[in-house]
């Protein structure tokens, strides 16, 4: 195609009426000129005009061929196809509506998932030259745990190395309460906005002077989200003060929408890092040991690898006076405001995409079946068009145009469905998520152009799935016979139809088995006993050591509290590991420090010996061990009265669950000295919480509430949620920063909660799948009965009984349904085997009962019953065929 050609084509496309007019004028001129010549030769004007017109032939045909030369035919054809399609829809609106709704449900399902995934993976933050941004990821070589830089290390890195144009440090996820609502802050070094090259939409950014070590400014910059959530986009927000733990912070700026500070969710406010002590009083005085995230803008001409090598060299050459001398590795990770490991996230979402995609697949199979049926019904129409000279390719294109139009309409419907579904899901989740887990940062993700593109692409792909095969089937006919009204055998797509039914049943079986497994697991988990008293126990953190005495006083005097005890670390925090040596070698144990009433408050019985006395405090050489530790150290003996040597280890045992509660809780940093201890009691082994992986310690050491860093476990009377609320109000008067009070019941219910969510999701998907399958089965069978009325009439006239006829029709569906069931159950079982073989398999199988036969049998039973009832009505109708009437119609 030459440029000239392109220019003319574009002109014809952009100004079609002008081009058409010119073409008409040119042809009209020709005829007029010819007529003038004939008049000059002596003809009358009327005769000359007639003669000229007849010599020219059909102007319409000539114009048409000119248009073909012009190359806009493709688009003209497409427009004509669209017009034709619209007429077809108007003739059969119910069929069109069925197709649109079915496909829209499927597209809506995948759109929901994509909308959730979109901000995590694709929605890059609005920062200039974001490709230059890298975070410095520092990990311990030994166990891969994080070993973040401190602020002074960060300053040293900025001064010593030149791999970054500049870098900033940040401490994200700091929560504080404002007017009873939780705000999320990220504290950043003063150069944050300069490094990112972002300026606020209104007001000014944070500046290095705000973050000065002494005498910085108590100022904050709001994010668009924070502005919206807490100030309802008040334009006069600048200059207002926000109280952070009692100190006023002035709002100096608001950033534009779409800027999240290179975080996935983004905070409500940014504040200077030097204000850390005010935002997190627990860190006051130890600001320099707090780990910071370091993110830098790579200097021009420095590659990521060079930068990494230089940083590693700098890190290992640092002077030896640093606190942290353990060996570390250092890496640079691109920082875009999306998840660090997009592939991992996609892998995590893959099973969900399969599950949601199955709905789309079933919907497509339904529509394909419908189109196959309609293809047979439209054989006459297609036969006529074929015999009029339309090519098969042309008709397939026409049929595909119809389907694409329907699919695009369905995409719009799918968008609406996904918004409604997400809105509903978020509302539901917000209602049932336990309040004491703190600020649940849950909102309906916005749909952007990526969601639109995804939907359009998905619609086109879906069209390929549901429309191509029926279109090819419908056009594979012999025009002459189809005009005579004969149905051609080839166009009767029995095998394709059976395959589609099989696929649908297969997908429904898979989803319903999942739903049933989750339901059974949720039921089992509701009965599970963690062995700790959960019903009326609350956990209270003491954030501010100066307020400790007042807090304890407040808890002790509160009317709802009936008993309380000290525990360190806080009950949900990771435990420290120690080595226990009873003379026969060292055994690894996890330990915690508790006060004497701990066992009574949590309902853990002391099976032998006694608990701690009030005067037995830290460093007192006594301990209580669990039954299993006692068994391991002194097999066959009671354990009470034995002595062993306890050596602390630097390792921390993190809960091995799927879910981290209390992510802010640090492991106990108080170092226990190595010492000999005497066992005074043996506590019963308890299972602990499964989904969060929180387990009870093996060795308990004595402590008291007046010791720093201990938390409170308390037993309350009355409704624990109500008690929690009164306590929160009471304690807030003592310490305004009292953050969280968690009821243990919430932690115990988390497990059931997550299984319930999984059950609900798979149940909704499974029910949708079954509904689509059953309706598809019903319509296909109804259609078949109608098609075969003649045959059935003949059979009955020849003596077939009504029962035989019903059986014949039912037999049509038996094979595909059975095949689908076997494939679905087989795949589910195979997947379960694969999951059990993975490293996480043991943990998963404790909670999710993958190999329970009941769910398999129950869901297969449901599907068989549903399919039978869907097939029964058309089959029974077949048996009512009156042979005389059908034969007379022949």
């Amino acid at each position, binding site marked *: 195609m*030459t*440029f*000239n*050609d392109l220019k*003319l*084509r574009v002109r014809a496309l952009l100004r079609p009426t002008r081009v058409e007019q*010119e073409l008409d*004028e*040119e*042809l009209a*001129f*020709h005829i*007029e*000129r*010819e007529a*003038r*010549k004939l008049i000059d030769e002596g003809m009358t004007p009327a005769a000359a005009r007639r003669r000229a017109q007849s*010599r*020219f*032939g*059909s102007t319409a*045909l*000539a*114009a048409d*061929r*000119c248009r*073909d*030369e*012009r*190359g806009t035919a493709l688009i003209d054809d497409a427009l004509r196809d669209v017009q034709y399609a619209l007429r077809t829809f108007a003739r059969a609106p119910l069929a069109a509506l069925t197709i649109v709704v079915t496909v829209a449900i499927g597209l809506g399902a995948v759109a929901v998932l994509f909308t959730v995934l979109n901000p995590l993976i694709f929605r890059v933050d609005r920062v200039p030259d974001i490709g230059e941004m890298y975070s410095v990821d520092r990990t311990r070589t030994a166990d891969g745990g994080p070993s973040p830089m401190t602020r002074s290390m960060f300053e040293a890195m900025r001064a010593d190395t030149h791999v970054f144009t500049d870098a900033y440090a940040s401490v994200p996820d700091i929560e504080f309460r404002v007017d009873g609502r939780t705000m999320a802050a990220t504290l950043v070094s003063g150069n944050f906005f300069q490094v990112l090259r972002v300026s606020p939409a209104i007001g000014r950014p944070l500046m290095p002077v705000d973050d000065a070590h002494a005498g910085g400014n108590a100022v904050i910059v709001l994010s668009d989200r924070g502005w919206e959530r807490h100030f309802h986009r008040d334009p006069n927000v600048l200059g207002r003060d926000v109280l952070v733990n009692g100190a006023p912070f002035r709002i100096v700026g608001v950033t534009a929408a779409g800027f999240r500070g290179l975080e996935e969710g983004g905070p409500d406010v940014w504040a200077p890092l030097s204000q850390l002590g005010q935002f997190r009083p627990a860190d006051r005085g130890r600001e320099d040991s707090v780990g910071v995230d370091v993110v830098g803008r790579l200097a021009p001409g420095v590659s990521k690898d060079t930068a990494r090598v230089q940083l590693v060299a700098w890190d290992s050459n640092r002077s030896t006076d640093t606190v942290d001398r353990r060996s570390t590795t250092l890496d640079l990770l691109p920082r875009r405001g999306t998840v660090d490991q997009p592939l991992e996230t996609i892998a995590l979402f893959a099973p969900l995409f399969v599950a949601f995609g199955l709905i789309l697949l079933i919907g497509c199979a339904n529509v394909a079946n419908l189109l196959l049926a309609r293809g047979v019904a439209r054989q006459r129409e297609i036969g006529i068009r074929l015999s009029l000279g339309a090519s098969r390719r042309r008709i397939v294109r026409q049929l595909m145009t119809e389907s694409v139009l329907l699919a695009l309409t369905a995409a719009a419907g799918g968008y609406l469905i996904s918004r409604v579904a997400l809105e509903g899901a978020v509302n539901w989740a917000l209602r049932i998520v336990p309040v004491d887990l703190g600020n649940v940062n849950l909102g309906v993700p916005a749909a952007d152009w990526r969601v639109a593109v995804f939907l359009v692409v998905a619609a086109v792909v879906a069209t390929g799935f549901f429309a191509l095969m029926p279109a090819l089937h419908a056009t594979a006919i012999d025009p002459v016979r189809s005009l005579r009204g004969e149905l051609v055998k080839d166009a009767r797509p029995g095998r394709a139809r059976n395959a589609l039914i099989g696929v649908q049943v297969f997908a429904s079986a898979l989803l319903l088995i999942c739903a049933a497994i989750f339901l059974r697991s949720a039921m089992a988990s509701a009965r599970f006993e963690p062995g700790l008293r959960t019903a009326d126990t609350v956990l209270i953190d003491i954030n501010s050591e100066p307020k400790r005495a007042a807090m304890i006083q407040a808890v002790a005097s509160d009317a709802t509290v009936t008993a309380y005890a000290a525990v360190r670390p806080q009950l949900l925090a990771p435990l420290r590991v120690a080595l226990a040596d009873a003379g026969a070698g060292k055994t690894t144990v996890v330990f915690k420090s508790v006060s004497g009433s701990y066992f009574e408050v949590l309902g853990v019985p002391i099976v032998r010996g006694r608990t701690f006395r009030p005067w037995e405090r830290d460093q007192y050489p006594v301990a209580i061990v669990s039954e299993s530790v006692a068994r391991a150290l002194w097999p066959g003996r009671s354990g009470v009265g034995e002595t062993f040597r306890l050596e602390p280890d630097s390792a921390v045992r993190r809960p091995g669950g799927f879910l981290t509660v209390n992510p802010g809780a640090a492991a106990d940093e108080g170092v226990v000295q190595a010492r000999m201890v005497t066992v005074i009691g043996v506590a019963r082994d308890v299972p602990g919480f499964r989904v969060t992986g929180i387990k009870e310690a093996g060795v308990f050491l004595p402590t008291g509430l007046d010791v720093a860093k201990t938390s409170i476990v308390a037993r309350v009377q009355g409704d624990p949620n109500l008690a929690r609320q009164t306590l929160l109000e009471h304690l807030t008067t003592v310490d305004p920063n009292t953050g969280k009070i968690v009821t243990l019941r919430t932690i115990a219910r988390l497990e059931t909660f997550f299984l319930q969510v999984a059950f609900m999701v798979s149940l909704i998907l499974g029910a949708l799948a079954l509904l689509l399958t059953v309706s598809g089965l019903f319509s296909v069978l109804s259609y078949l009965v109608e098609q075969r009325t003649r045959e059935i009439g003949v059979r009955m006239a020849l003596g077939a009984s009504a029962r035989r006829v019903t059986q014949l029709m039912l037999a049509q569906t038996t094979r595909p349904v059975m095949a689908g069931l076997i494939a679905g159950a087989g795949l589910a079982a195979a997947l379960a085997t694969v999951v059990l073989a993975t490293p996480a398999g043991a943990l998963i199988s404790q909670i999710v009962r993958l190999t329970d036969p009941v769910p398999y049998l129950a869901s297969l039973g449901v599907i068989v019953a549903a399919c039978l009832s869907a097939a029964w009505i058309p089959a029974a109708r077949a048996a009512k065929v009156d042979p005389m009437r059908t034969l007379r119609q022949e």
Partner: protein
Amino acid sequence: MTRTPDLLPGTLDLLILRTLQKGTLHGWAISERIQQISEDVLQINQGSLYPALHRLEHQGWIEAEWKVSELGRRARYYRLTASGRRQLAIEAREWDRMTTAIGRVMKLA
């Protein structure tokens, strides 16, 4: 259906280009000219003429322009472009080669 059986395929383009070598003409004048010069042997089918003109225009060998005609109303005039001139040279050479070859066969075979 409307194709001229009496014109060798491919020759219409050549004839149009050759006719336009002398100057700009509108569609009717092109067909008239060919008819006159060939002494009514070559009758251009009008149904093919205009598609051919549009095709040549798309290939960039001729250019169209609206001008006032001898009738006093505007008509679409076609003019040979530089690349059209080159194309004409190529096609004319080819044509000569073909006719000579065919002539030889007709005489001597």
